[in-house]
């Protein structure tokens, strides 16, 4: 075996050293593209998913969200829950919210929305709502007849062509809101919020007390309690601690939420991701196989000669394993350089979705390692198979073709 390795290495070495350099460069180039193809799209999709889950954290769910159990509409005694949550070590801030359905009416135009009732001063610590007011101001503790409207329904921001909107509503305008229980209120628009994200920009915000009034609640109900932690990454531990503190409602981390979201809303994206990976792998495998196969066919005669003078088939097969490992290693290295340069480029020049969502690709080391291992394994198999099949042919056939 040791002789086989020495001879295989010598054959591979000579064929790289004296082989056609242009062919070598071409093969390496193609392999680097295959590698790129394997890792690039998943990085972009990863970036998109990251952006998406970031939104989930920044707006509806925080780091941890507590929701009513079973068929309950409200968390009962939300203040008690809040008290328990705030006492848990590692919790930075928590607040309660009331989400309700409503329709907004302005000059004959009507749109359906979710209105979130919130405690404005607490939100500064919880969400990015207070920071995305593009016109006007955010709610204050005294805001009672005031409303914040998402840019998409206000008709100001991007997306107003796609969704129903109120047609250029500005701060200071008055809108009529009909709540799901039939109660009607008139609000002055205090601000327009633009989060460049439908979940935000198709919503409206009012003071928590407003919803309480409208629905006749008693200061204890909430549809969700949103929690932020001091240290990212501790969500799961704190989730357990909150449970231990005696909170019997449903407790989710943002990861739980975005997982189910990816499964639901982002299902198509996930499917594209997996499909693109599978297709890349198949195309990559086929290309590696073709490249090595052509290479082997070109050297059929040589393989025959080697066998004829007593070189073992095992050394011959090994030499191709070495060769293809060498090609693919170079290809992967070149592909990595190409990939990292592209990553750098897209970090500086993010791809824009929906005109405003900037997607920067994320480098996932696990994916990279996976791809490198897959490519190498593939290459060794792809290198060995054709060499193995030719090395089993009769010597006459290999050398003289018949």
């Amino acid at each position, binding site marked *: 075996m040791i*002789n086989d390795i020495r001879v295989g290495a010598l*054959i591979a070495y000579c064929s790289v050293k004296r082989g056609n350099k242009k062919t070598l460069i071409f093969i390496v180039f193609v392999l680097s593209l295959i590698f790129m193809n394997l890792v690039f799209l998943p990085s972009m999709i990863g970036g998109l998913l990251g952006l998406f889950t970031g939104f989930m954290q920044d707006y509806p769910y925080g780091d941890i969200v507590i929701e009513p159990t079973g068929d309950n509409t409200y968390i009962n005694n939300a203040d008690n829950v809040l008290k328990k949550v705030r006492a848990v070590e590692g919790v930075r801030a928590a607040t309660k919210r009331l989400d309700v359905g409503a329709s907004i009416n302005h000059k004959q135009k009507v749109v359906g929305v979710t209105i979130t009732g919130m405690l404005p001063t607490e939100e500064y610590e919880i969400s990015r709502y207070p920071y995305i007011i593009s016109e006007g101001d955010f709610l204050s503790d005294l805001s009672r007849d005031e409303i914040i409207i998402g840019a998409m329904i206000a008709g100001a921001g991007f997306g107003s062509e796609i969704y129903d909107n109120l047609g250029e509503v500005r701060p200071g305008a008055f809108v009529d809101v009909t709540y799901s229980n039939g109660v009607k209120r008139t609000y002055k628009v205090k601000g327009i919020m633009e989060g460049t994200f439908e979940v935000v920009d198709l919503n409206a915000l009012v003071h928590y007390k407003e919803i309480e009034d409208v629905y006749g609640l008693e200061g204890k109900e909430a549809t969700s309690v949103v929690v932020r932690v001091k240290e990212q990454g501790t969500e799961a531990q704190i989730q357990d601690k909150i449970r231990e503190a005696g909170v019997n409602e449903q407790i989710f981390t943002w990861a739980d939420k975005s997982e189910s979201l990816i499964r639901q809303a982002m299902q198509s994206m996930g499917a594209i991701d997996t499909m693109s990976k599978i297709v890349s792998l198949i195309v990559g495998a086929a290309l590696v196989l073709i490249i090595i196969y052509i290479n082997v066919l070109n050297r059929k005669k040589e393989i025959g*000669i080697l066998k004829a*003078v*007593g070189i*073992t088939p095992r*050394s011959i097969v090994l030499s191709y394993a070495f060769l293809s490992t060498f090609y693919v290693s170079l290809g992967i290295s070149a592909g990595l350089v190409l990939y990292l340069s592209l990553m750098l480029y897209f970090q500086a020049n993010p791809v824009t979705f929906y005109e405003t969502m900037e997607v920067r690709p994320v480098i996932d080391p696990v994916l990279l390692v996976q791809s490198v291992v897959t490519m190498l394994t593939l290459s060794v198999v792809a290198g060995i198979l054709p060499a193995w099949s030719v090395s089993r042919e*009769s010597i*006459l056939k290999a*050398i003289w073709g018949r």
Partner: protein
Amino acid sequence: MIKVKDLKRCYGTGDTAVRALKGVSFEINKGEFVAIMGASGSGKTTLLRILALLDDATGGEYTIRGLKVSSLPEAERSYYRLTQVGYIFQDYALINEMSAAENVYLLSLMEGKSKKESYRTALEALEKVGLKGKHDRVPDELSGGEKQRVAIARAIAKKPDILFADEPCANLDTANSKQVLDVFKDLNEKYGQTIVMVTHEPWHIEYVDRVITFKDGSLLSDEKKVKEPGSVKD
């Protein structure tokens, strides 16, 4: 040393079948230098390939040193090709991406010799065929005759039991042919090397002990030469 009995080789099947060997029998003794002659297409190469285990007979049998080598398992056939026989191809059959030295060196390496020793053996063999100083050249940088001599060096470097040479001088001028034949003669006389050489040139006969002539896949004649004193140097 070599016993051939009713050896047959038929290429293809049916109407297009070519009966390249129609049942030949002969024996070659250890230390003999045999020339095989005959018209083109008479089956000389076919015979040599079979004896060197590059091809299989379709009938008859043969033994080498009493061993039925053709029925050995493939791994042992490979080892036999590597260690017991040297084969010089009609068309050189060198590895184009390897230098002259590497072409020779490869085999000793396969045999398990050290790098250093393999290299030394290769240089010695190249020197013997008059290629001193050209060991670093690849086949493309060598003339036809030089390539043929690399092929010869490759075959003789391992000092095989039997050397098969398929028209080793076909691409050489008279001077170079003589040089090669002298090497063969030397191996034959000094080391008792058994040599079976296919040739077309009548003047080569003066170097050999015996001439076997083929015609249409059959043995036409088999003449042991009576050495004329002084015709070949001792």
